[in-house]
């Protein structure tokens, strides 16, 4: 799906835990998710902490959308 969105000219960041599959298939902007059942959440955290984590992830995703890439690239989540 990410590739079809990109094919239509929409920069897309794929947030997934299966980053190796994403690279193999050829999605161009990839961000590692938290876990398969909750890629942008963490039930082990207190609710307010989880909210902050989600915001940070999204900010990182937005940043990935602003970076020019030549080929599939895995963006580190950072702190």
């Amino acid at each position: 799906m990410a590739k079809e969105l990109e094919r239509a000219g929409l920069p897309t960041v794929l947030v997934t835990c299966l980053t190796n599959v994403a690279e193999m298939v050829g999605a161009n902007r990839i961000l590692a998710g938290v876990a398969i059942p909750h890629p942008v959440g963490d039930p082990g955290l207190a609710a307010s902490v989880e909210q902050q984590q989600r915001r940070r992830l999204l900010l990182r995703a937005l940043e990935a959308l602003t970076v020019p890439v030549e080929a599939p690239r895995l963006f580190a989540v950072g702190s």
Partner: protein
Amino acid sequence: MAKFRVLHYLNQYFGQIGGEAEADARLQIRPGPVGPGTLLQAALGASAEVVATLVGGDNYVASDAERARAEVVELVRPWRPDVLVAGPAFASGRYGLACGTLCEALGKALGIPAVTAMHPENPGVELGRRHAYIVAAGTTARGMEEALGRMAGLAGKLLRGEPVTPAADAYIPRGILINEVVEAPAARRGVEMLLAKLGGDPYESEIPRPRWDRVPPPAPIKDPALATIALVSEGGIVLRGNPDRLESWGASKYLKYPTGASADLTPDAYECIHGGFDVSYACADPDRIVPLDAARSLERDGQIGRLFPFWFCTMGNNTTLDNARKFGAGIARELREGGADGVILTAT
């Protein structure tokens, strides 16, 4: 013995009607071979005859397949062909699509085999390969004689009921699996393949490995604060009760929900129906898969210019690649029409 009757399809250019200006030319039929049809006749030899040539403009068929399908059967039926030979279309996309469409329509309606030829990356290949035998051709008409020769050879075998294979007859694999009984059990074949691989000896995979195309990365967004960002997911988040009936296995569709004024996806309104993992965390808080709450908060704070007014969701458990591509293309169309600048796609 009576000769086999061959119908040849050509576009407006090879059919000698005209160039791009005639791309809207209606489907029309004339007796005997036309243009490259004479080469085809020579390649077919004495056992088959090109009884008629069907000609159509590249736009006429490709832009309205329904109309072409409806018209072509009645046009062609009186000529009682035993086989359809279409093209070669080489790299011409509209021509390739037209060949694929006509092969399917005539093949089904008249119960005849259909042979065409085009470059393996022609969009007509995906459309046509299950219905027609598509000879792999080059990109330009420089390969005309070779392509026609192969098409004639393949057509001849199909007419005589002889077995054909992609390797021997140079056609693009049709994606049809045929069971074969072999002596050696799979365990032995597997070990032999492994030993060959380890020893650096040649081996052939019984199942071809998928090859992934590369999509050139679109240009980045300059400033998210000025951009419209859309949320898309394959995580199976649906309205509580799943009224839209999104499947938990093998999705057949994607859903489009308005973000409305929501600042949050709440468990009383939404649930997760994905069949591929434990959905309890996502059901407790659907934002863990579709991060609407965080996206809204970033929009409020000005870090996202605007959240696209709809979010899109499908379900990725055992969903076919074909469907995933269709969903992606469909969502892309809606996003582009709605002015989206970028997408955050969450996957599970």
